[in-house]
């Protein structure tokens, strides 16, 4: 089993069992790129992705958009929610930090696959910051949605590395969802099986929060 460094060090926590041809080609090309220059190897990377993993970049960009929304939501919430304190403030701080790390890792992963990371979307969270209660209610919506978004996209992922990192992130989203639900006095989960949502369903659910 290979222990070589991944293109995105954040993803190095994933113990990858077996390597796909695509990832092997990408890693080889990236290694060559450090010697011969990125311009030389870019076509080979693109080719590898076109053959087997083009969809993974799209999925990662979809995930990145959601993580941007979440990270921005908590960042703005921490600044703007009046009377935010205690457990809620502490949790929002942890969640903001986690989501920011997800943004960073996904950005690196997309670059590692030769893709272009999507830009942070414009946001409009309406009256979600009007009170701690409203803030936590919207937070629960985001985290439950995040879980279902990753679970729905994961089966479409080609690369084992990408699947591993999506799994490492979705577990954190689920932990966030449970913690927020605890503060909202809601059950830990709606069901013994978390829902998987299609990309279109997720995008239409976040549409009210995206501006422009």
């Amino acid at each position, binding site marked *: 089993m290979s222990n070589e460094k991944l293109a995105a060090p954040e993803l190095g*926590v994933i113990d990858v069992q077996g390597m796909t041809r695509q990832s092997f080609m990408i890693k080889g090309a990236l290694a060559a790129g450090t010697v011969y220059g990125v311009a030389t190897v870019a076509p080979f990377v693109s080719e590898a992705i076109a053959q087997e993993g083009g969809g993974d970049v799209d999925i990662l960009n979809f995930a990145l958009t959601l993580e941007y929304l979440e990270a921005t939501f908590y960042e703005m919430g921490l600044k703007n929610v009046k009377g935010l304190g205690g457990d809620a403030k502490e949790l929002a701080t942890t969640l903001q930090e986690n989501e920011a790390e997800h943004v960073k890792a996904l950005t690196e992963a997309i670059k590692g696959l030769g893709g272009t990371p999507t830009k942070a979307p414009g946001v409009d969270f309406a009256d979600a910051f009007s009170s701690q209660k409203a803030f936590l209610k919207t937070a629960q919506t985001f985290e439950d949605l995040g879980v279902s978004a990753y679970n729905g996209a*994961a*089966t479409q992922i080609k690369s084992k590395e990408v699947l591993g990192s999506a*799994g*490492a992130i*979705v577990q954190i*989203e689920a932990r966030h969802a449970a913690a927020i639900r605890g503060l909202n006095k809601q059950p*830990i989960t709606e069901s*013994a099986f*978390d829902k998987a949502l299609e990309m279109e369903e997720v995008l239409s659910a976040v549409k009210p929060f995206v501006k422009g």
Partner: protein
Amino acid sequence: MSDVTEREADAPRDSAMHELARDDSSRKRFLKMMGGTSAAAAFTIFLAACGEDEKKKSSGEPKQSSGGGSMKGDLEIVQYALTLEHLETDFYDAVIKSGVIKDKALAEVATAIRDNEQEHVDALTKTVEQLGGKPMKPETTFDAVIKGGAQKVLETAATVENLGAAAYLGQAGRIKSKEVLAAALSIHTVEARHAAALNKVVGKTIVPDGAFAKPASMEEVLPLVKPFLKA
């Protein structure tokens, strides 16, 4: 996935675990496949724990499976998950029956989690059967934990749920069938929810690994659940 050609013509596909329990040579081959002697040592615990139950249920002819080589790997992973879910369900059943948790709200949480785990057992049992296998059920014991009192029980629950979540994450990349992967993922995040809620109860961080959850392999998980399996 169509490019999987891994195949062991002489290994049984229908009731792999059952076959392993009585056939020494196929057991060795399986354990070798599982990745070495530490896994081998760990997995024999499961076989010992499941042996008696298997004997009782093995009167009928094993069903033939139409699954290919890739399904065999998935079957083993689903059996492993089923064993962990049985362990969790048995644990919460024993805890609830013992009445060790006096706090009403916490007892309700334990019951809600138990119900989730029972649903996981039911779903995975069906999946094993669909893949042509005989569902495994370990013999478990939680006396030592329950004797330790409510705090010990809650801490153990948190440990088991965090381990369960890590165990699912550790298998995700090895699953071949999209249907099995989807099922595993939908359970994985519920285990993670349990883990976070119980971590909160016992005063631990909801995200012990930080922003990225760490996976655990079978070799890492099996020794940790050994104390709960009857030899």
